[in-house]
């Protein structure tokens, strides 16, 4: 398990590749990855920037718990989770979930489950700054399944 918070831009594919250098890929036939980026629009409004507030301490614990529970449910998986905090600009990566497994169904299902639980359980809050200068809190995440 690896869970990381970044307060600066990170390259999700470099992170995945770096992790894979330490993994026995000849036994892990499947890798499922989700990368979420900051969009420059939301609910028909143009967004200039975002601030990601979080609850230091609880955030890391929650991410580790979510990953540990996925590893208990799909024992063969290996996971990497990363999330931005603080000020974020459009197109930057907000979240990365990567799951390796011997088989594709476990990798795919665990990747989706970790992302959904992260979105509904990990203590992050998005505050958007619109192009007209006003700011607003994102009220809730859209359902993913």
């Amino acid at each position: 398990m690896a869970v990381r918070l970044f307060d600066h831009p990170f390259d999700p594919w470099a992170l995945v590749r770096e992790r894979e250098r330490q993994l026995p890929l000849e036994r892990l036939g499947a890798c499922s990855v989700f990368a979420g980026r900051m969009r420059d629009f939301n609910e028909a409004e143009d967004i200039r920037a975002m601030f990601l507030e979080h609850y230091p301490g609880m955030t890391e614990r929650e991410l580790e718990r979510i990953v540990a529970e996925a590893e208990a449910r799909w024992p063969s998986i290996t996971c990497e989770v990363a999330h931005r905090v603080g000020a974020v600009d459009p197109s930057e990566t907000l979240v990365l979930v990567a799951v390796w497994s011997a088989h594709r169904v476990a990798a795919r299902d665990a990747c989706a489950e970790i992302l959904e639980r992260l979105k509904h359980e990990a203590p992050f809050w998005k505050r958007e700054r619109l192009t007209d200068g006003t700011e607003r809190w994102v009220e809730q995440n859209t359902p993913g399944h």
Partner: protein
Amino acid sequence: MTITVQYFARLREDLGRERDEVAATGELQTVGDLWRHLHGDPPARLMAAVNQAHARLDTPVADGDEVAFFPPVTGG
């Protein structure tokens, strides 16, 4: 002895502060008791944590606990 109460995001802004310190008494047995003691009726969709783990309004609180209240999370 006290219970520390933290607020996040819109809730922190609406309340105008980041935290409260509450004296632990026999009347404050749950997360819900704590909110009602400080702010009255809890709003819809209020989320809470005790010692950095998710909690509900009926989760017990004890002297020295770190309690947090926050709106629905929106990460990812």
